[in-house]
């Protein structure tokens, strides 16, 4: 019987020459990706884990048992009930956004498992698909039962099946990066940019936030997922290195494009959780500090290793660290009934902290929160006054990222209108416009929420939009956690009187 070191290399590197079909028919460029290269250019594809299926199953079993043990110990509803209300709502964001996004990762990896250009790549992508299936199942297992605690957790299953505006944006992103992508772009965009650049480290940061918030179940879940990501993210590096030898400009474009697209989505998911939906005394760092320490420096090192340049919009991105997620949070708060989780207003202590962490633009953001607080002060607290402290005009969305036109600063919004083939588009920022203009055939026919309303596909009246199109109900749509009943608002009212 062959020993492991004898059979494993043979099994992993099982490629052969085709005699009755051409190689480009087995691996068509449209689905394998470009540049199309003969297998001789891919034959040295290698990764360091070199796992066998048996080892994979044994490792995953151990990890699943560890998750199960923590769930049994601290994952019951009575444990979750004790968590701070803002954190619980951050959980609802991740409960909705994470599981089925991971499932699209199954599809992307299976594409690599069939259309990857070397057998070792295809073997690793098979494990990647199994990983992503695990990352779908675990959060569904942990989050969906919380429906008994709070009906907003229903969105763990429901989110991607709705036309909620944030689901439209997330689907636009994941459909492109995973579901409908060729193998080369999928592995560079997902493994190198999304996982190595963002989620691998983001999960370390989220685990730390969860620990501070005493949410040991979530901490264990993201830690367990992160260990898988660290392994299958390795697929993208040798893919990138091979393409780099033949078409470095294309690689630079993919990295620039996908870093921006990832930044847009993850600044919202992580930025809101870190700076608003974690209790002040449980925040280990600001979102900007986390980005600078964990994402920015590490990503620049990765670029350097591959001989790539910083994306052309780098200075703009660094500037956005100070403001973008704050603009989004204030906008989302004022349209909270369009979402499936609840919000809090930053009070005087939080605003003092935010000013300290984000001195560059905080004056402008503070004025916005003062105005929103003033509205609560005028109408008084209570669930019956929720919609009196809510936006009424239709907010607007970017034709690339599908997120609200909330880029730039309160003083100068960076939205820009572009006419393409006789149709008018609007983009939140120069990078979103730049991506669109590079591949208009990919994006031009997609309609953002505003265009759907104007064309009659979606209802124009807010109540109908919420219930008929965004799949929300008065019970599940987002509210202020305290319905405006904040001690500090009362204090200010008393002192004003």
């Amino acid at each position, binding site marked *: 019987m062959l020993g492991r070191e004898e059979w494993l290399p043979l099994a992993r590197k099982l490629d052969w020459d085709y005699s009755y079909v051409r190689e480009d028919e087995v691996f068509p460029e449209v689905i394998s990706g470009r540049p199309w290269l003969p297998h001789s250019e891919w034959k040295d594809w290698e990764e360091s884990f070199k796992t066998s299926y048996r080892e994979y199953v044994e490792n995953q079993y151990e990890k699943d048992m560890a998750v199960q043990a923590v769930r049994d110990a601290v994952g019951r509803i009575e444990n979750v009930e004790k968590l701070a209300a803002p954190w619980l709502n951050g959980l609802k964001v991740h409960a909705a956004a994470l599981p089925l996004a991971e499932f699209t990762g199954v599809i992307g990896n299976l594409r690599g498992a069939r259309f990857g250009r070397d057998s070792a790549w295809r073997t690793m992508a098979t494990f990647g698909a199994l990983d992503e299936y695990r990352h779908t199942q675990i959060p569904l297992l942990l989050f969906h039962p919380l429906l008994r605690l709070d009906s907003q957790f229903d969105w763990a299953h429901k989110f991607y099946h709705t036309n909620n505006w944030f689901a439209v944006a997330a689907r636009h992103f994941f459909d492109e990066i995973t579901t409908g992508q060729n193998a080369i772009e999928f592995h560079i965009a997902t493994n190198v940019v999304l996982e190595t650049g963002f989620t691998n480290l983001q999960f370390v940061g989220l685990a730390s936030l969860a620990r501070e918030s005493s949410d040991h179940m979530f901490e264990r879940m993201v830690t367990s997922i992160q260990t898988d990501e660290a392994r299958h993210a390795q697929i993208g590096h040798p893919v990138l290195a091979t393409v780099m030898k033949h078409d470095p400009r294309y690689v630079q474009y993919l990295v620039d494009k996908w870093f921006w697209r990832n930044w847009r989505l993850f600044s919202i998911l992580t930025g809101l959780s870190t700076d608003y939906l974690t209790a002040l005394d449980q925040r280990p760092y600001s979102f900007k500090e986390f980005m600078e320490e964990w994402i920015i420096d590490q990503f620049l090192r990765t670029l350097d290793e591959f001989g790539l340049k910083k994306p052309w919009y780098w200075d703009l991105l660094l500037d956005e660290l100070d403001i973008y997620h*704050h*603009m*989004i949070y*204030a*906008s989302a708060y*004022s349209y909270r009934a369009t979402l499936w989780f609840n919000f809090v207003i930053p009070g005087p202590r939080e605003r003092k902290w935010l000013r300290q962490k984000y001195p560059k633009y905080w004056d*402008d*953001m503070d*004025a*916005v929160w003062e*105005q*929103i607080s*003033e*509205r609560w002060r005028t109408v008084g607290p209570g669930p019956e006054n929720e919609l009196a*402290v*809510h*936006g*009424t*005009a*239709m*907010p*607007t969305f970017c034709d690339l990222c599908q997120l*609200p*036109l*909330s880029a730039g600063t*309160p*003083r*100068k*919004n960076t*939205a*820009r*209108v572009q006419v393409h083939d006789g149709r*008018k588009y*609007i983009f939140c920022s120069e990078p979103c416009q730049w991506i669109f203009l590079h591949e208009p055939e990919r994006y031009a026919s997609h309609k953002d929420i*505003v265009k759907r*309303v*104007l064309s009659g596909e979606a209802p124009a009246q807010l109540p109908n939009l919420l219930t008929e199109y965004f799949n929300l109900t008065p019970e599940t749509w987002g509210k202020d956690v305290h319905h405006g009943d904040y001690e500090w608002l009362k204090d200010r009212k008393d002192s004003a009187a």
Partner: protein
Amino acid sequence: MPIPLYGFLQGDTVGLLILADESDTLKALAGKLQDAASLRVAARDSVRLVYNDKIMDQAMTVAQAGFEALDRFDVVSG
């Protein structure tokens, strides 16, 4: 037929869809945007309306100013 426009009020965190009538004066249009954003931005008495990088005469109507569907306009402190 109302004309849908992208309105950006200085001080606000998001652009808003504003439905303008051709006969609206630009002063009225600026007022519509300020009303729509009043949850987040306190009203200002003195504002300017910027369209195609030009400060507009607020006595003009939307039709006279040549607004077309899905154009951008800004209302800034003046």
